[in-house]
């Protein structure tokens, strides 16, 4: 039996075992869960090699699964983050109910993501896509909060996208009578012009939903914040990347054939940029950490989409790099929020402050992740951002680069809000007894955060598989030309040597940190944050010194007009309008049997009157 089958069987079987073990004992369930994900990871990375394929026939359709370098790159994200989140989940979910259900959905969603990455035909791609949708939907509604709002929004938009994709798939199938993705890509140039335009549009609709692109992003804030954080890290870090995965394929294999005057790429790049900007602005306005991170995810995915849409070597490389990196730091951040939620019971910046001394490890992980998110040099985020900017400038997207830059500058605001809101500021009495999260939660965060640190200096570790992935897509190898282990080049030949820069930064930082710490070490003592000089007075105990409400009021006032109405407002208007229409339509059934009989006669008479035109 082929290893590919075995991986899927292990995952499915493990999921079911976990589900049923829940009835027997919690320990057994946890063991199964952990074993399943570990076994999958190990089997996947040791036994399945790039190039392996299996094919079989189901319902008269030829289905083919296999692994290529491109899929491998993304499965790295999925399984890496998935494993970490699994460890994290063990501790995070402890004591909650319906755990069998949660772990089952978790594993199934991992399975579906691997399935997507290994599908070489459209039907299994779609099947796994839908499985991914509902398995993640199950987790979104797991908490039972706002299911009717956020859950439905999620499933609704996902279905919208999935059905758009399904339309495209059947169009392809009807045209070329085969479902193979590579076949579709090969024959794409021979499609009619209308189809050439519509196919990518429909596919991209599906992918944009998962990648939370404007204007299909409205599900994301709710869904991300409603799912348990152990899963949201996967959700935002890995699952949304499936959208990116699809987008890359569509852009490389279809849209690059379209004539330039269709403005396809431009539109998409701009949609990505607008997503980034709006996501950032809305993230700034949030008081709920989960929402903040959700909007931030939208924004980050916006960068990635822009990179994909621009599609030059460097842009694509940056998009792939950012995709992996986003998994690392957003995974960390969601986990951190989860840890805080678990330890304090709230995730509102307006409620919890000053945790830095209570949860130092969480803070360190968050700090690293935030620095990576902001794209500040010594960490991995900078590498991705640098490549993105350079690629945009190199490929003459001048205004786009400004837009992206605006978004990433504004991102500092919410980055700071995250750190300040939770960790800095006043240490309130209410949170005096908060403890650091258990090691099983902290370690995954730290590992992921360390990943960003390593990648900041040696991006080549990740760029190598990314490069291999791009070669699968038909790009030439860019190693040595655009990147090496720790050097980045742009397409004009300018370069950034990361190592000396990082060493210099680290050296300076440590030097001054040591100076600052050592100087007067003995005499400097820690005092409570209450003990401050407020206009020359020491404030009293009960004075409120926490600044967290209306945090960025001036800024939001400046960008006010943009943020007057959220996109979801228009969706809601549309939705309620439709529901009113539906409600009106069902009044046809007015309850009177005679009326129904008259309908029968009307139907008959209409057909009789038009029989010549109906039955030619």
């Amino acid at each position, binding site marked *: 039996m082929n290893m590919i089958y075995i991986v899927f069987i292990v995952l499915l079987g493990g999921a079911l075992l976990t589900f049923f073990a829940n009835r027997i004992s919690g320990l057994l369930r946890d063991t199964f869960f952990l074993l399943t994900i570990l076994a999958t990871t190990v089997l996947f990375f040791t036994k399945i090699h790039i190039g392996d394929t299996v094919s079989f026939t189901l319902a008269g359709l030829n289905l083919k699964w296999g692994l290529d370098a491109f899929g491998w790159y993304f499965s790295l994200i999925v399984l890496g983050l998935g494993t970490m989140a699994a460890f994290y989940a063990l501790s995070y979910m402890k004591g909650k109910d319906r755990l069998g259900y949660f772990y089952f959905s978790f594993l199934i969603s991992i399975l579906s993501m691997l399935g997507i990455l290994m599908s070489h035909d459209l039907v299994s791609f779609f099947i796994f896509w839908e499985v991914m949708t509902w398995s993640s939907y199950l987790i979104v509604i797991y908490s039972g909060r706002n299911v009717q709002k956020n859950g439905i929004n999620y499933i609704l938009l996902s279905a919208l996208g999935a059905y758009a994709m399904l339309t495209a798939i*059947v169009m392809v199938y009807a045209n070329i009578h085969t479902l193979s993705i590579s076949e579709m890509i090969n024959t794409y140039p021979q499609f009619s012009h209308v189809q050439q335009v519509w196919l990518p549009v429909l596919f991209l609709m599906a992918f944009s939903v998962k990648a939370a692109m404007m204007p299909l992003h409205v599900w994301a804030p709710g869904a991300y914040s409603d799912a348990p954080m152990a899963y949201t890290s996967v959700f935002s870090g890995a699952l949304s990347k499936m959208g990116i995965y699809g987008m890359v394929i569509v852009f490389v294999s279809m849209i690059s054939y379209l004539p330039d005057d269709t403005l396809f790429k431009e539109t998409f790049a701009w949609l990505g940029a607008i997503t980034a900007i709006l996501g950032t602005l809305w993230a700034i306005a949030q008081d709920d950490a989960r929402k903040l991170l959700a909007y931030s995810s939208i924004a980050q995915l916006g960068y990635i989409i822009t990179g994909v849409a621009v599609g030059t070597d460097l842009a694509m490389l940056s998009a792939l790099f950012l995709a992996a990196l986003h998994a690392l730091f957003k995974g960390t951040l969601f986990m951190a929020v989860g840890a805080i939620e678990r330890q304090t019971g709230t995730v509102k910046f307006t409620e919890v402050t000053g945790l830095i001394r209570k949860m130092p490890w969480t803070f360190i992980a968050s700090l690293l992740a935030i620095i990576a998110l902001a794209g500040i040099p010594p960490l991995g985020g900078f590498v991705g951002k640098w490549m993105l900017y350079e690629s945009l400038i190199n490929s003459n997207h001048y205004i786009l680069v400004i837009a992206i830059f605006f978004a990433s500058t504004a991102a500092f605001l919410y980055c700071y809000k995250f750190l300040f809101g939770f960790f800095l500021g006043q240490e309130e009495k209410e949170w005096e007894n908060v403890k650091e999260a258990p090691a099983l939660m902290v370690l995954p965060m730290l590992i992921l955060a360390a990943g960003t640190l390593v990648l900041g200096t040696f991006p080549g570790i990740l760029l190598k598989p990314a490069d291999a992935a791009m070669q699968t897509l038909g790009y030439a190898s860019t190693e040595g030309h655009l990147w090496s282990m720790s050097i980045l080049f742009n397409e004009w030949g300018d370069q950034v040597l990361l190592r000396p820069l990082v060493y210099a930064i680290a050296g300076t930082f440590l030097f001054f940190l040591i100076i600052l710490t050592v100087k007067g070490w003995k005499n400097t003592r820690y005092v409570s944050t209450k003990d401050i000089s407020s206009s020359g007075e020491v404030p009293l105990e009960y004075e409120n010194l926490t600044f967290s409400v209306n945090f960025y009021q001036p800024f939001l006032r400046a960008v006010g007009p943009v943020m007057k109405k959220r996109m979801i407002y228009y969706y809601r208007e549309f939705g309620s309008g439709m529901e009113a229409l539906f409600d009106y339509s069902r009044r046809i059934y007015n309850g009177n*049997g005679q009326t129904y009989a008259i*309908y029968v006669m009307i139907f008959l008479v209409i057909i*009789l009157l038009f029989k010549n035109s109906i039955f030619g």
Partner: protein
Amino acid sequence: MVGTPVLFIAIPLLAAFLIPLLGFVWKESVRILPGLVLLYLLYLAVNLMGQVAHSGTIVEVIAGWAPPWGINLVFSPLTGLLTTLMILMGFIIWIYSYRFKNIDFREAVKYFILLLMMITGSVGIVLTGDIFNQFVFIEITSISAYALTAFYKGRDSAEASFKYLIIGSLSSMFLLLAIVLIYSQLGTLNMADIADKAHLMKPGFKILALIFFITGLGIEAEIFPLNGWTPDAYAQAPGPVGAAFSGIVVKAGVYAMIRVIFTLFDVSGTHQFLIIIGMITLIIAEMAAVKQDRLKRMLAYSSIGQMGLVIVAFGIGTEEGVFAALFLMLNHAIIKSLLFLSGSYLVYNSTEKYIHETDGLAKHLPITSFLFALGAIAIVGMPPFAGFWSKWSILSAAAHSNMILVIVLILSVSIIELVYYFRVVNRIYFFPKQKEVEPKRPTINALIAMSILGILILVIGFYPDSVTGYLHSASQSLLEKGKYIQDVLSTGQLFIQ
């Protein structure tokens, strides 16, 4: 040789006549006998299916008169498939309703007779090769359905039943008119014979007969303006009967209509008409379902919508389209029955059957709720459950016929469908339970019945090949009109006395 198709009619009739008698002897036999009959028929159906797959259509003449003079039963891959499906659904519904609600002996006698007859009538509609005989079976089915709709006394069931009856009477009127028109032209009632001679009819007769057939059978097939009775009847009938409606009766109605359109009259434009009418049915029904506040009405509207989809798929008219339609009929029978069966335990003790009464029942009825959720996910076409494959086949059939608009409409409507199903599932799982609701634990029979359906959904979902072979031969047999005529008309000569 385990039997012939006529046993599908004869044995249940015999049983139905026997049940009152046996009731005098042993009361429990009233409940058991229908099950035994159905079990035997299931065995028979499966055997005959194998035989048909092996050696082609079985045509059985009645009373020894060859077609077109006598009545004949046709057990082709298509009718055999539908028969098997109906018997299977009937058997499952029997398991489910073995001890459903606390009805006394006298009621049980009537309930099981009527249920058995409804199933038999539907099977007869499918099997028979005679147009008037089909009418008789339609009436058998309808009368049992009226009575079963009005079975519960405490509700507005009589109202629903009366509406059904008015429209059903119109339906039988139209059918008879159509039969009159055909007979006045051709002097024959055998379907194969009519199909063979249809070109001899004056065009006016042909079109008018077709229109009457479409109207009359459209009522049974729940086409849009003709389906006023449907939601009421589905909602007011006992749960298993609702399942039987959507799993059995409607299927028979659709089959009759499709047989008329595909085999009897080959009028151009009918297919487009089917697509349009099916589409309207689909859209209106799904729209009406969204704002329903009663569970069973919602399911009923959804059922109408699915039937519209089936009709659209038939309207596509290609082998793929017919395949898709049959697949959808199969899946819909299984899934919607599961929804009705599990749904009626979710609103078991309620009189109004409001959706909000199901809030938070997942904790109290875990398996029922799970099966309902499974059904909901399956019916909206989420892979890897059964509904996906039928949706896929419809879409690919439409795509092969270049009906992009149809695809888009079907999918947009699917989104609506998804919304209202998931809303209900969410309520069941995540809303706080209403205080005054007293959930009733399903009996072991009910659990078995629902689980069988759930397993079927999974089996078809994960391994669609288990049914696609039969469906393909069925769809071919529907489209091979000449072969049908030949099969029926050539068997006869041997049997003349």
